[in-house]
């Protein structure tokens, strides 16, 4: 019944799952924010997430060690980032295309390894919920904010850290200057290539964590193409969030809450026309697109390769 939707239990449930579902978007989109602020458009996020999700899941399945799984996902993401950085920085390849190449590679590769090494869908016991003493006992609030697993907490911790690094540190200043005016940054002695290597690899690591958060913390399974476009949505969220970590947070939360609502509508068997329920997440993406039209300027050097003048 519709009225079920407005009971306190259900509202708490929707908010708690919304907070949880935002996790992969946050990791991936914050990583992408760093690389875009330094002028690199990485469209391969989806592929990095898929390989990260598989690596984390497989290692966890075989060793039983969640942390080892998470670290493998980070390593895989870092390697993908390294390759992307080489192609982008050293070879000055067109970023849109190389990103899609990495996407196709990650999509095929994760599936190939899945078929070869596992063959069937299995489940693992993912990161457990951590109830923060005291705070998790607050009615409602406790369940929503303080009874999540460690990767969820990590994602929200990442937002202020990313904000601080980008806006209050020398490193952040260098990243932004490289994204806005690489020639000027270069003439002031900033190593443009090295900064971009750093941001692309960081983005890869965070995309790996995003994938791992799906396979060993939220869903605890691995399936073919399990990210189903979330990596591309993360790229769109960076745009929606106007290249700011706080904006990305807002976008990720909005998107995930609507998604959670949609899932609960199905769970509760509310007679909403099925075409409406299935469409909700997409409609939201439309809104994201329409409402974020050109209020903020993209980093000037976004997707432009840098070549030093002799």
């Amino acid at each position, binding site marked *: 019944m519709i009225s079920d939707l407005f009971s306190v239990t259900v509202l708490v449930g929707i908010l708690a799952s919304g907070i949880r579902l935002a996790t992969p978007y946050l990791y991936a989109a914050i990583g992408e924010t760093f690389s875009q602020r330094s002028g690199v458009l990485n469209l391969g996020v989806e592929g990095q997430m898929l390989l990260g999700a598989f690596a984390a899941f497989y290692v966890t399945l075989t060793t039983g060690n969640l942390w080892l799984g998470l670290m493998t996902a980070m390593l895989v993401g870092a390697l993908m980032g390294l390759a992307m950085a080489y192609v982008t920085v050293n070879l000055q390849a067109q970023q849109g295309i190389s990103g899609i190449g990495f*996407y196709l590679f990650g999509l095929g590769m994760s599936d*190939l390894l899945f078929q*070869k090494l596992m063959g069937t869908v299995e489940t693992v016991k993912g990161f457990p919920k951590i109830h923060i003493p005291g705070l998790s006992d607050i009615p409602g609030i406790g369940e929503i904010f303080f009874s999540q697993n460690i990767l969820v907490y990590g994602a929200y911790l990442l937002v202020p850290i990313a904000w601080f690094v980008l806006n209050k540190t020398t490193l952040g200043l260098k990243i932004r200057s490289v994204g806005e005016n690489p020639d000027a940054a270069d003439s002031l002695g900033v190593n443009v290539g090295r900064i971009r290597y750093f941001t692309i690899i960081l983005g890869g690591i965070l995309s790996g964590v995003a994938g791992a958060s799906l396979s060993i913390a939220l869903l605890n399974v691995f399936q073919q193409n399990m990210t189903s476009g979330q990596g591309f949505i993360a*790229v769109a969220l960076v745009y929606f969030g106007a290249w700011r970590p706080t904006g990305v947070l807002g976008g990720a939360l909005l998107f995930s809450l609507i998604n959670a609502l949609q899932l609960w509508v199905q769970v509760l068997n509310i007679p909403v026309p099925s075409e409406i329920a299935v469409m909700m997440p997409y409609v939201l993406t439309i809104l994201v*697109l329409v409402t974020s039209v050109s209020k903020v300027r993209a980093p000037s050097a976004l997707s432009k390769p840098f070549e030093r003048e002799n």
Partner: protein
Amino acid sequence: MTKNSRWVNVGFQIAALVLALLFTSLILLAAGAPPLEAYKNIVTGAFGSFKKFSDVLVSWVPLLLVSAGLLVTFATGLWNIGVEGQITLGAIATTWALRELQDTGLSPSLILFLAILAGMAGGAVWALLAGALKTFGGVNEIFGGLGLNFVATALTIYLIFGPWKRPGVASMSGTEPFDEALHLSLFPELRLSPWALVIAILAIVFVYFLLQGTYFGLRLKAVGKNFRAAYLLGVPTWQYMMLSFLICGALAGIAGAMQVTAVYYRLIPSISSGYGYLGLMVAMLVNYQAIWAAPVALFFAALNIGSIQLPIVLKLDSSLSGVLQGMLVLFVLIVEGVRQRIARRS
């Protein structure tokens, strides 16, 4: 470009292909599958019989249409990532026209003709939207395109589960299939439509002449090479960009129309089947030269079809073709970068 350097270029592309194959072999070995056996299966799966080869051509048709369109936007310096959505809108418009006209008593061939025109228009409108967002809204065509792709998927799902749902229960299997009179005719015993094949070949020939042999194509390329210079020389730049989007969208729309009228005979949720992304790869791999698009697209289509039987024979999923395609793109980029480095040094 001299004749000599063109062949050097081809040599570099072949080197990239060999490297991609080598690297994929390493992955296969690591995963415990025999690489040669896998490649042999792909080749026989694609070229083992006339029927199999005709299936490759079925997959070649949409890929070639999309690649032809993308060559035009690439020439104009545009990243038309929204091409997936343009295929989808083409398919939607075609389905709409077929639904509206199927009970009018018009001759089936006229209905099909109008439906394909509608598909062209649908794709073109979607591309113009991305173009308008870029030209008038300042939205980078990559972000606009990504967003419009999601909108297109949403619209497809809405139609399949809503207004166009099958009598009884709506499902992911798509809309009610069209009457056989409204299918494009096929070669006997095959899944390939001669009409689709002819249209795809005409499209690539059209794009080849447009880009190589016309004043219009020259100006398009001028906009792509140096936007500001073209503007100062009096080329109406934004109009040319919109026209470029329009041509690409129309061709992608025909690809969608072909999927509806010659392959699925209905609208399905994933009607674009990733041909948009593959088309982007093809257009990039051929270095924006139309003449190479046909063989490269054929190669990709063969990979797609050839790897279909891999799961049965080697317990490898058809995902292998994805790995190879991704590898191929990356190695072409690497080899291209190395080539330019050498060129700069000498």
